[in-house]
């Protein structure tokens, strides 16, 4: 068959989701944010939730998520996305409310809001992008930065005696009674992307069913901040990040509740 015979609308198996609009993303080449945006758009589209979805965007690289995914968005102050999402969900319980936060937003300045929203068991889905660095501001050390990792503010590597240990926030949130689903995923291979999509779908469904707070941590790369090519950043993540942040479900109580 010639390519012209194959390239017909009825033969499409994968394409750009309709909910992603035509704007070119401002993310660096190979950034995991792009993949996660695509997954969020696909999941909302598959759930038919375009008209009821409200995203709460963070401060950080994903601050302009409203430019790319064609649903309603609210911009929260730095780290305060779970607090804003709490209000939105309580006032509009029929809406699909999710936050989309990075590690500098969720695990640093927004730790209090995150922990208390999860402890109250707010019916929101939290998507947490963990790349171990402050990407937008130029690659400074974040609480999630690994020991020995070189960043702009730790040029000789993160020292435990000076900077403390990396903050592993998902197991912390899993201990709280309010969370119903805490999982850690990644988007470095096609198989991992499909698993991450399933996790996001389950988190969104939990939010609609009112089962409690769902947290989907995505271990990601920041090729610009890590000063690696996108492919090498993925290899580095598999080699180093997965040791500290192993991928898999941390908590899932939804099977008992439903």
């Amino acid at each position, binding site marked *: 068959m010639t390519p012209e015979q194959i390239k017909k609308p009825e*033969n499409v*198996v994968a394409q*750009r989701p309709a909910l*992603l609009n035509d704007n070119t993303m401002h993310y660096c080449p*190979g950034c995991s944010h792009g993949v996660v945006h*695509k997954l969020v758009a696909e999941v909302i589209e598959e759930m038919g939730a375009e008209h009821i979805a409200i995203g709460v965007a963070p401060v950080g690289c994903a601050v302009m998520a409203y430019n790319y995914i064609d649903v309603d968005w609210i911009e929260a102050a730095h780290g305060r996305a779970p607090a804003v999402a709490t209000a939105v969900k309580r006032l509009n319980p029929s809406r699909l409310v999710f936050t989309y936060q990075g590690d500098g937003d969720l695990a640093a300045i927004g730790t209090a809001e995150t922990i208390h929203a999860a402890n109250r068991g707010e019916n929101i889905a939290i998507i947490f992008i963990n790349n171990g660095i402050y990407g937008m501001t130029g690659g400074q050390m974040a609480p999630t930065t690994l020991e020995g990792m070189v960043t702009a503010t730790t040029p000789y590597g993160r020292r435990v005696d000076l900077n403390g240990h990396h903050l592993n926030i998902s197991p912390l949130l899993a201990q709280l009674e309010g969370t119903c689903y805490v999982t850690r995923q990644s988007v470095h291979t096609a198989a991992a*992307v499909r698993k991450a999509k399933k996790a996001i779908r389950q988190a969104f469904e939990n939010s609609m069913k009112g089962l409690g707070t769902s947290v989907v941590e995505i271990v990601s790369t920041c090729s610009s901040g890590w000063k690696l090519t996108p492919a090498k950043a993925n290899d580095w993540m598999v080699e180093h990040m997965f040791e500290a942040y192993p991928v898999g479900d941390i908590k899932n109580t939804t099977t008992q509740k439903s």
Partner: protein
Amino acid sequence: MPKITGAVEIDRDRCKGCDLCVVACPCSVLALETHDVNNRGYHYAADVNPEACIGCAACATVCPDGCITVYRVVEK
């Protein structure tokens, strides 16, 4: 055995040349252009070996910018 044929279409002006689709492709269909650049100066991805495509959609799944459309035909 059914014969599976695939084809990819790449939105070259949206591509940022991150190389992730090239790494993900199991059949070495894709490669980055070595000389040509798109309207934003990136060496975009192209299907240099289109006959080998099986339409598995691994490239489109990992593409951060959603610039790949994958087609697949199963001939019985």
